């Protein structure tokens, strides 16, 4: 049991970063399609089962994996050329290691941290590895020995360096507010109330939140800051010369970096795994009431979802009857979950600690996916910034704003502490 609890955050890190990539690609394509009044990928199927199109991203992944590994003959530094995608991938993957997925769990007098890397230096780790991600891009662009690639990687470098400053400074104001650099303590801090609102970072520090979210977009090289791969000007930017799984690693790294940034935004500004107004202790004390609420919620949402599936799953594929299978699976799963939950809700067993931990995982996942949706939504709304506009926004607007924010925060924090 204790080994499992130690390994659990590691498994979750793998799930949140690697396993969500196909889902994110699917989400990106489907959301983009719906925004543009299209349908998106909906045909790829395994014996008639399409899972709403997720099978398509699995098929795309398989294609990338089984493609021929191609090495352009003009490349002189093969080692750097091959190392670049792995650096980009590793650094964005390692960024995830410090995110707390749930509060510390105490079972039999033993406390387990729900971070893959149980360190108090979470923010510093994030900054270090988020900055390292661009090294993969620089190295890839340089080792490709291609003008477009080097232009793309130069753009990425300049952009990340400019935005790192504003990002670090907006983080400083959050550190002053929370008075700690441990991510888990920050989340605990956010379970308090601020007047009538939950004391989430976005309510305490709206300016820092906006600056951080904007800089996070720039750090992950996502639209509207994706000049590094501006296909209208420089073909594909830094990954012009890459193919097969080497390109795949760059591609996956972008999504994992997005997931990691989203996870940090959730942790810093959206209360992490906390439900608003409810601290971990409250949840454990009123666990039965919470369970009844979840049971109602599960029943209502699965019924709504079933109605939606029945209305929209009209394309008839060869093979199994999709709607029937989905209905069976959803109804079966919901009933099973309700039975298990009512067993504990009626007081037959006590699993409040583990139950609250699972609830916090779920809350974190929901918030993380909301952030993913935000990233995608912004990408398909805003056009790409011109390169000089990017730099102007970073240095002329975001940097002074974050400096002003630090001053104001420091004055308020000192004033409040002095008043007390």
């Amino acid at each position, binding site marked *: 049991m204790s080994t499992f609890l130690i390994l659990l955050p590691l498994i979750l890190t793998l799930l949140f970063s690697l396993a969500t990539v196909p889902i994110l690609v699917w989400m990106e394509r489907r959301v983009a399609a*719906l925004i543009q009044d299209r349908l998106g990928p909906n045909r790829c199927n395994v014996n008639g089962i399409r899972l709403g199109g997720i099978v398509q991203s699995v098929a795309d992944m398989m294609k990338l994996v089984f493609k021929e590994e191609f090495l352009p003959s003009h490349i002189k530094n093969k080692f750097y050329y091959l190392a670049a995608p792995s650096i980009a991938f590793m650094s964005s993957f390692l960024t995830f290691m410090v995110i707390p997925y749930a509060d510390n769990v105490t079972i039999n007098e033993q406390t387990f941290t729900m971070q893959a890397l149980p360190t108090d230096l979470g923010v510093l780790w994030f900054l270090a590895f988020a900055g390292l991600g661009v090294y993969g891009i620089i190295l890839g662009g340089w080792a490709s020995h291609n003008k477009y690639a080097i232009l793309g990687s130069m753009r990425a470098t300049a952009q990340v360096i400019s935005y790192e400053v504003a990002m670090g400074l907006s983080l400083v104001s959050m550190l002053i507010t929370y008075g700690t650099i441990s991510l888990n303590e920050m989340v605990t801090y956010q379970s308090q109330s601020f007047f009538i609102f939950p004391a989430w970072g976005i309510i305490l520090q709206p300016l820092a939140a906006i600056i951080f979210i904007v800089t996070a977009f720039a750090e992950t090289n996502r639209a509207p800051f994706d000049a590094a791969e501006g296909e209208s000007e420089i073909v594909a930017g830094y990954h012009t010369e890459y193919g097969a799984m080497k390109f795949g690693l760059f591609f996956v790294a972008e999504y994992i970096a997005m997931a990691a940034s989203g996870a940090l935004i959730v942790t810093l500004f959206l209360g992490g795994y906390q439900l608003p107004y409810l601290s971990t202790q409250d949840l454990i004390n009123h666990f039965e009431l919470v369970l009844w609420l979840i049971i109602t919620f599960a029943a209502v949402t699965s019924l709504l979802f079933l109605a939606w599936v029945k209305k929209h799953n009209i394309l008839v594929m060869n093979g199994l009857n999709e709607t029937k299978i989905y209905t069976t699976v959803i109804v079966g799963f919901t009933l099973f979950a309700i039975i298990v939950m009512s067993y504990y809700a009626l007081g037959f067993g006590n699993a409040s600690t583990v139950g609250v931990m699972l609830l916090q995982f779920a809350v974190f996942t929901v918030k993380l996916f909301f952030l993913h949706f935000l990233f995608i939504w*912004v990408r398909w*709304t*805003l056009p790409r910034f011109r390169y000089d506009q990017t730099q102007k926004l970073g240095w002329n607007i975001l940097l002074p704003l974050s400096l002003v924010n630090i001053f104001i925060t420091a004055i308020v924090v000192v004033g409040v502490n002095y008043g007390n």
Partner: protein
Amino acid sequence: MGIKVVKRHGGTFLEKMYVQAVFGGMKTTLKHFTANLSDASNIPTLCYPEQLPTDITPRYRGVHRLTHRKSDDSIACVACFMCATACPAKCIEIVATEREDGVDEKMPAIFNIDLLACVFCGYCVEACPCDAIRMDSGLYSVIGDKREDFIYDKAKLLSIKGISKEEFSLAK
């Protein structure tokens, strides 16, 4: 006077911050997203092999057809080679022969169109003096297993029906 002063946008501080514009744009895209998610039937996408297009008009340049004469339903073509000459892809092969039934003097013995070489430009239809070749069949998909399947011969071209009201050749 006739001078209209156009109000310039984007000069004020509020507009320069782009916040309003960004949120306005995001509101628009979210509206599309939620509307399409709650009711996907409004999406104009055609699920092609199952749903077929309904908006093909007689002016659509589809697969060619050879028209018939209204008087006796025989072939309208007189093998004048105008279409084959006008064709930029050189995809029309005609072998002329004498017409024995007294309706006209000449007719094609062989009339082959190689649809793999054809660029569907419609020049043959414009060149034809007898309204004998037309592209108003409305057929947009040509399918075959081998190259020979795409060479449409005289019998095949004569058998294709048009979707316009004018079934027969209009030439006198």
